[in-house]
């Protein structure tokens, strides 16, 4: 009697344990499945303009879309002549330029915080970087729109160049650079800190100065982590939308590498006035999203391949 009561209890408990395990498991599975939901929905919606006739407008030519030099020829809803070729190029160009600005600054700041600065200064500078990292991107956009546009406008005036109120590739690059510096600094600093002390001591024992050691040995040893920070930085630059849209100027056609020209990025063109929730004007944004995801994926693959080539120095 007693024993059967106990087994019944145990069975009940085991059932309840299994039930809760199932609940927790499903939470994990749901969380993990969203990546498929995202990829799936972007793929499905983004492919519609290419494979259907878009309610009589006609299907979009994939090759022309990817290589096109005009966002839209003709009238919205009545034209299938979309093209994002020039936008893909400007997006990559901008991401690269912003990395050229933010990477050296970010890495040197990280080196300063980790190795050069006195402890108090390093501590407060780390706080500054943390605060910068937590400032929402829209505030950077506002700052860019209020200050950087003006600076760029005055700068271009110096050369007798009439820029469109400062809206330009240069402005976007600067806004993205100041946004990515904290990311690069934070991750590079961790990498620099984790460089094996023995490597450093070896260099110092061989007669190198502290600065020489920092630049030639520490940075080289931490290059894998530093490279990872660059990959993250470029990811952030490629995906940023609202801040960019405030300073890009909304270029509608034409390849341009002139840093004082207006521009568009894959993200900023997506944010431009969506009027309908059906039809080609709606779906084409998903196609742009699809292109953006492919661009990010390919960039990551290429950079990771380079990172493997650059190789790892053993770090603790």
């Amino acid at each position, binding site marked *: 009697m007693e024993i059967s009561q106990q087994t019944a209890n145990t069975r009940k408990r085991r059932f309840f344990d299994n039930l809760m395990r199932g609940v927790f498991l499903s939470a994990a599975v749901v969380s*993990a499945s969203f990546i498929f939901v995202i990829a799936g929905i972007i793929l499905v919606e983004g492919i519609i303009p290419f494979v259907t006739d878009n309610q009589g407008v006609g299907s979009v030519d994939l090759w022309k879309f990817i290589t096109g030099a005009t966002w839209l020829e003709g009238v919205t809803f009545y034209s299938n002549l979309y093209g994002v070729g020039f936008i893909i190029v400007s997006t990559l160009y901008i991401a690269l330029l912003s990395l050229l600005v933010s990477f050296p600054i970010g890495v040197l700041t990280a080196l300063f915080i980790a190795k050069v600065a006195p402890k108090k200064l390093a501590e407060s500078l780390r706080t500054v970087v943390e*605060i910068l990292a*937590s400032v*929402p991107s829209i505030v950077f956009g506002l700052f860019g729109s209020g*200050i950087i546009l003006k600076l760029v406008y005055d700068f271009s005036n110096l050369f007798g160049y009439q820029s469109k109120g400062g809206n330009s590739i240069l402005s976007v690059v600067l806004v993205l650079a100041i946004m990515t510096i904290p990311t690069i600094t934070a991750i590079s600093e961790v990498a620099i800190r984790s460089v094996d002390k023995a490597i450093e001591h070896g260099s110092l024992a061989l007669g190198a100065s502290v*600065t020489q050691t*920092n630049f030639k040995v520490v940075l080289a040893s931490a290059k894998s982590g530093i490279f990872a920070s660059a990959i993250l930085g470029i990811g952030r630059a*490629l995906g940023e939308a*609202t801040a960019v849209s405030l300073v890009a100027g909304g270029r509608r056609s034409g390849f341009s590498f002139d840093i004082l020209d207006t521009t568009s990025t894959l993200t900023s063109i997506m944010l431009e006035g969506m009027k309908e929730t059906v039809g080609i004007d709606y779906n084409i944004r998903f196609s742009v999203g699809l292109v953006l995801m492919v661009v990010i994926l390919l960039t990551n693959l290429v950079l990771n391949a380079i990172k493997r080539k650059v190789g790892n120095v053993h770090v603790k």
Partner: protein
Amino acid sequence: MSSNIKRKTTDLFLQGLTYLASSISLITLLSIIVFVFGKGYKLINFQLIINDYESKGYVAELQHGSQFCNCDAQMDFEDGTYYSRRWGIAFSDSIDLLGKNVVEVEYVSPFSPFRALQDKGIGTEPILMRTDYTIIRIAFDDKPSALSRDGAQIMANELDNSDSFREIEFKTTGGGIRGSIITTLYLIVLTLIMAIPIGVGAAVFLNEYAPINRFTRVIRSLIETLTGVPSIIYGLMGLAVFVPLTVQLTSATGGNIISGAMTMSVILLPIIIRTTEESLKVVPDEYRQASLALGASRTQTTFKVVLPNAIPGILTATLLAIGRIIGESAALVFAIGASIKDNISLTGKSTSLAVHIWTMMTDEPANIELSSTIAIIIIFIVLLLNIMIKLLSARFMKRKLGM
């Protein structure tokens, strides 16, 4: 010897470079703060938080039977404020957000007939004249109207010299952000209600239950992949999945706060899972073994021993989530929409504070002043959250070391 000098100069130069680079972060932060405060401090006041964004215009007349009051003001006025004793109302000159001269109401006596005016439009409710409303014109029966461009003094005098007036046109104060604040609060509450249980549940599974095998690794890396997706892509997903879903299930007709909160939940899941898991990891295994040895079931152990010890981590995750919700803009533009509203409903379009900034900055002309004021509020909240997270983790670390 000379090579030594050369080496020293190179070292100095390189060291200088690191100083220079580091100063850029500092300068950037300082100039952002100086910029938003410089542009935005003028508009910071309590009214901003409770006012509507849209300013409404009214044409009104005296209510039937109400008359001038000849009432004394119960306060002293500064220079530049003109009081009409006969009507119990005071005006002053002011400048609106667009830089135009306007006449503003400074004071309305409790006995003034302006406390209850009759709307000449469709409204039947009596309307109250409040301070900070702007007067456009007062029309009289027997003389030309007093217009706002004549200034406050003339308007007050004209009014004081009349026994009655035909109609008064005025505007309520606009430029408030009450609607966006409510939307942001709704978003925070709804998102946390959805994301915290799922996120914590997933973290518990991964840390407490999951076997070490391929399946767990795949789940983990799939969740990790979510962190790399740009927020605008989340926005597209919200637009294509959650907006139609909420339109089906509720009275919503387009983007709405619920679909926005669902989208935010997906964005936050990896952050919540990672932070919670980190705090679960540091709960010592002895606790679990002791609880199980005492005869507690697995479920009891999880809820009564493991999770209570992980509360600082879950709190940190919550604070991080709130910060992200307040700062998010691109995803919400798609998932909720970008039209600034004053009457907020869960199933209607509206803007969070960050999207409010974006909408105003993409308008012509851009309203940098009010945007900066909102930016001050956002930065302030984000700083506060950061400090709280720091304190929380400091306490947590202390406890960990104390053991």
